[in-house]
């Protein structure tokens, strides 16, 4: 059974048929080629497949592709703008928060949502907001520092660059993802 859907992914409108059995993760990776969306546990526990749907972090492995109809999706491929790292990505680099990198796309996206909310977070609240991501290299301390720095930078600058999905009106070339 197939259904026609339209969604905006990283600023680009995509209109196509999906199998109702497919998860958003499968469609993003296999149909659209956004392989920066990682498949980890497949049951919503590890957070590797997290994407922003209308700005909200969601595990794409337990989200049916048909539900994405009319939604705006941001994957890691859409975070950098014109070859420039976003403040969140830069903070992850600066704090050495990337080891094997498998959890990084999801963590960058969740941190982007937190940074763009404009809210302040206590240390405990920030830990809680990041708790849906497993890092099996256990680089949590540096990830936490990167998230703190990113949120602070974005608060200081009053924005987090222009990667809020709602701001994506221009078409953007899909970048090569890493497998």
């Amino acid at each position, binding site marked *: 059974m197939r259904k026609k859907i339209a969604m905006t992914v990283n600023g680009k409108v995509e209109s196509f048929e999906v199998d109702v*059995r497919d998860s958003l993760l499968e469609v993003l990776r296999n149909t659209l080629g956004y392989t920066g969306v990682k498949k980890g546990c497949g049951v919503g526990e590890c957070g590797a497949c997290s994407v922003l749907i209308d700005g*909200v972090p969601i595990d794409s492995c*337990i989200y049916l592709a048909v539900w994405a109809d009319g939604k705006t999706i941001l994957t890691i491929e859409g975070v950098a703008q014109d070859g420039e790292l976003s403040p969140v990505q830069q903070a992850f680099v600066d704090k050495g928060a990337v080891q094997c990198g498998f959890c990084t796309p999801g963590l960058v996206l969740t941190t982007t949502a937190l940074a763009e909310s404009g809210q302040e977070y206590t240390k405990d609240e920030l830990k809680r907001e*990041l708790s*849906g991501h497993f890092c099996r290299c256990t680089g949590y301390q540096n990830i936490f520092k990167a998230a703190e720095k990113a949120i602070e930078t974005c608060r200081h600058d009053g924005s987090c660059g222009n990667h809020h999905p709602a701001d994506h009106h221009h078409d953007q070339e899909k970048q090569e993802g890493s497998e």
Partner: protein
Amino acid sequence: MYDIQDYQEALTLSEAAETLARNPRMRIIAGGTDLLIKLHGGQIEAAELLSIRKIEALSHIEKMPDGAIGIGPLATFTQITQDPVIKTDIPILAEAAVSMGGPQIRNIATIGGNVCNGATSADSASSLLALEAELTLISSRGTRVLPISEFYLGPGKVDLRAGELLTEIRILPQHYVGFGGHYIKFAMRKAMDIATLGVAVLCKLETGNILAEVKIGLGVAGPTPLRCLEAEAYAAGKVISMDVLNEVGRLAIRSAKARTSWRASKEYREHLIQELVPRALREAIVQAGGGEIA
């Protein structure tokens, strides 16, 4: 790819009820955070799904003029955690909601699904039991309203009849106004874990340091979430003391039907009940305006 044989999307409540009446085999899907995992694990095969995600009338959280709080089954855990009415009037539900899963799960998982899946470990269940929530269930045959305590029939089994749909969870003012409450989730990790025990306690005080009313909801203490009526009856009218609180904890074990699973032994769960019920009650007393107990 999930083993889905049919997928329908209802846009209104009546459409959902009609579709269910035509095909009672259809399973309702909302957040999908339980159902899709069961499909992934093969516990459900060839699913016929009816999505109620687009029925906007089901995601409300509102306080009626009479003080009753109505929660639509599509309200997500994040919505419940952040809602001003819930945070102010029934904080034990907000505390329970924020303990569930992780942020990405809370952003999509719904309270209706948590209730209808009937897990004893459902994080919202012990609070909803202590709050004596009422459930509104509709079908093409009509509407019925049921106290949540009667909804749970057995492990994963609820009194949701063929063709029925949960449309509201309602908390009446007499069940929360004047009460202080506290919720404790005991688990091995602080996030992304299933409770070893969930304890929700509400209490109301009388002048003279007296417990007027105590309500205790437990999760994972038996095959279904349950109330501790014997301990509650004992507590009513007692002058607050550590001895009384400890006795409430001891009596709470008698209502529980704890069992050994790979997560914890029966003995350990009973130990947790004995320890955590008084601890939650102690904090509930403070929340109700009483003093700290030395």
